[in-house]
């Protein structure tokens, strides 16, 4: 029953809080409390699943498996669910402290948390799509949050591009059902090996395009900077730290588990596109001055690393992809939340984020880069290791550039931000540092999550 708890808590709270005025402070804190409760229950579930090495499964309606809709918690799912809920929680607390500006905001954040938990914990391909749309629709509405009218255009384009991706994914789901006759992920993975290769490759391409758009990979990235730049810090943190996880998770789950043969076939393409994203993101980020813009382009580059790790494949590659996705999502949330703040110690929080993006110890990002290097060495490719090194160096340069612009130039001019806001950013920075100095849990999570991937290769 533990698997239902986070989903039920966030969903009921979202529906109930939607009736209240979210601008009142106590409504916001209530939402944060519900989300915290859901996160705790999910953390307990994560420990049981990752430590006990078992898969929790519930079939709705008491139907036999294969008929009813399956909720399934394996290591990969719970790790991503926990990560996303933590990011949403931090962003929500940040915004509640700063003052919520529209009445629907807390409820929307909870609806997004519901969608994210649901899609990471489902074992059914179509159910995945439904929860995915729930999270994405909350994301579309949130991207218009902030009150600035000039941002509506960006929100519209964000919605249209991602919807196109969603519908391509839906068509791929229909195709999966047509060729395998089931929607259950575990069974799809088994039957996919016997499917006509040309059909399987079409499905794989559709799914890659859909998640590539979510992740903002190089050829599908054009919507991303405009949305992140205009959005308020909490929303940008959620979009890049929680919603973008869908892309990484989808590529791992569908590519690594359901379509592992096709993934191996397209490995070179993935590595090439990933490298293009890394280089493009870094170069664009270098040429920008605005912190939001730099972070947006940096997000494109960082997504490329996940793709490279996925292309390398094997236990080492998949584990690296999981670890890097986790670290990257925390980095992005931290940087977006810390960048607009001013005052004592906020610079330190930002530096932790910047170090983590560049992959320097003692932050979690070091671990991510380390795993990537291991994957690169495992693949035996000098070019790849070189690219990782250059990418890391470039990201250090552009992060340092923003630091220079934001904190050295005119710190004296602005008042310090509220202490509580700074405390939120510092807590998140502490999480990133703890992951770096006590790496066992993160590495274990990565190994366990990657365990079932690539079985069909």
């Amino acid at each position, binding site marked *: 029953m533990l698997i239902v708890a986070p989903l*039920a808590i966030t969903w*009921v709270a979202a*529906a109930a809080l939607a009736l209240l005025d979210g601008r009142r402070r106590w409504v916001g804190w209530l939402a944060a409390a519900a989300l915290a409760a859901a996160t705790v229950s999910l953390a307990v579930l994560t420990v049981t699943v990752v430590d006990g090495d078992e898969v929790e499964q519930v079939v709705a*309606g008491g139907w036999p498996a294969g008929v009813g809709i399956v909720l399934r918690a394996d290591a990969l799912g719970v790790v991503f669910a926990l990560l996303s809920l933590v990011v949403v929680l931090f962003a929500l607390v940040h915004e509640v402290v700063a003052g919520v500006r529209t009445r629907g905001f807390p409820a929307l954040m909870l609806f997004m948390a519901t969608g994210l938990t649901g899609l990471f914990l489902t074992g059914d391909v179509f159910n995945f799509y439904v929860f995915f749309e729930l999270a994405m629709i909350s994301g579309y509405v949130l991207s218009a949050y902030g009150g600035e009218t000039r941002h509506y255009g960006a929100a519209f384009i964000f919605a249209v591009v991602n919807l196109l991706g969603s519908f391509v994914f839906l068509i791929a789901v229909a195709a999966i059902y047509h060729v395998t006759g089931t929607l259950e992920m575990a069974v799809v993975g088994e039957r996919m090996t016997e499917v006509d290769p040309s059909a399987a490759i079409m499905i794989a391409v559709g799914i890659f395009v859909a998640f590539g758009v979510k992740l903002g990979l190089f050829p599908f990235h054009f919507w991303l900077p405009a949305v992140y730049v205009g959005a308020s810090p909490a929303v940008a943190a959620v979009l890049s730290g929680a919603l973008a996880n869908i892309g990484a998770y989808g590529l791992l789950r569908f590519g690594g588990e359901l379509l592992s043969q096709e993934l191996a076939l397209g490995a070179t393409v993935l590595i090439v596109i990933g490298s293009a994203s890394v280089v493009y993101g870094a170069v664009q980020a270098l040429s920008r001055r605005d912190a939001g813009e730099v972070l947006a382009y940096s997000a494109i580059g960082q997504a490329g690393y996940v793709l490279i790790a996925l292309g390398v494949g094997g236990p080492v590659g998949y584990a690296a992809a999981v670890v890097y996705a986790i670290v990257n999502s925390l980095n992005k949330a931290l940087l977006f939340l810390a960048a607009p703040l001013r005052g004592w110690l906020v610079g330190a929080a930002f530096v932790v984020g910047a170090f983590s993006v560049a992959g320097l110890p003692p932050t979690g990002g070091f671990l991510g880069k380390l795993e990537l290097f291991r994957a690169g060495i495992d693949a035996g490719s000098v070019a790849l290791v070189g690219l990782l090194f250059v990418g890391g160096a470039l990201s250090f340069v552009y992060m340092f550039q923003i630091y220079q612009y934001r904190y050295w130039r005119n710190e004296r001019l602005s008042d310090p931000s509220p202490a509580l806001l700074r405390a939120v950013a510092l807590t998140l920075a502490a999480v990133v540092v703890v992951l770096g100095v006590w790496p066992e849990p993160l590495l274990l999570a990565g190994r366990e999550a990657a365990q079932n991937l690539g079985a069909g290769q």
Partner: protein
Amino acid sequence: MSDSSVTVLTQMTARLLLAPILVISVAVLVNGYASVGDGFSAGVIASLGLLLQYVSFGRERSDRLLRLRLVPAAAFAGLLGALAVALVPLLRGEPILTHWPPPGSDAIYVGSLELITAVAFDVTVYVLVVGCVVGFARAIARAGEGVAR
């Protein structure tokens, strides 16, 4: 919103049609367990009837005449009800969305109506759909009035 293209005839038709549309929607709702019909399609039929009122009378008059202001809030009440139906079996130690009475045993009959928890679920879906569609319509209508002023 008093558009000249909306004639008295349209308004009369809209008013006359409202009651039959609501009756038909309820019929489709309760029909769901013996024949074609369910909460969603019934909700769509009912909300089409309400949308017709908005189109022919404008937002303010429809809100006043039919007390539609609270309908969007009903959407969330419907969602809460649906979640309650889904989650209550958990208290009895059964998986979510288990319906009662279980398949094979006799339902409680009220006339020709069969009462099972699936019916309760469909009623909440009905409320949810009507609330959502009316909410959409009101939101767009309000945005439009902002321009007109």
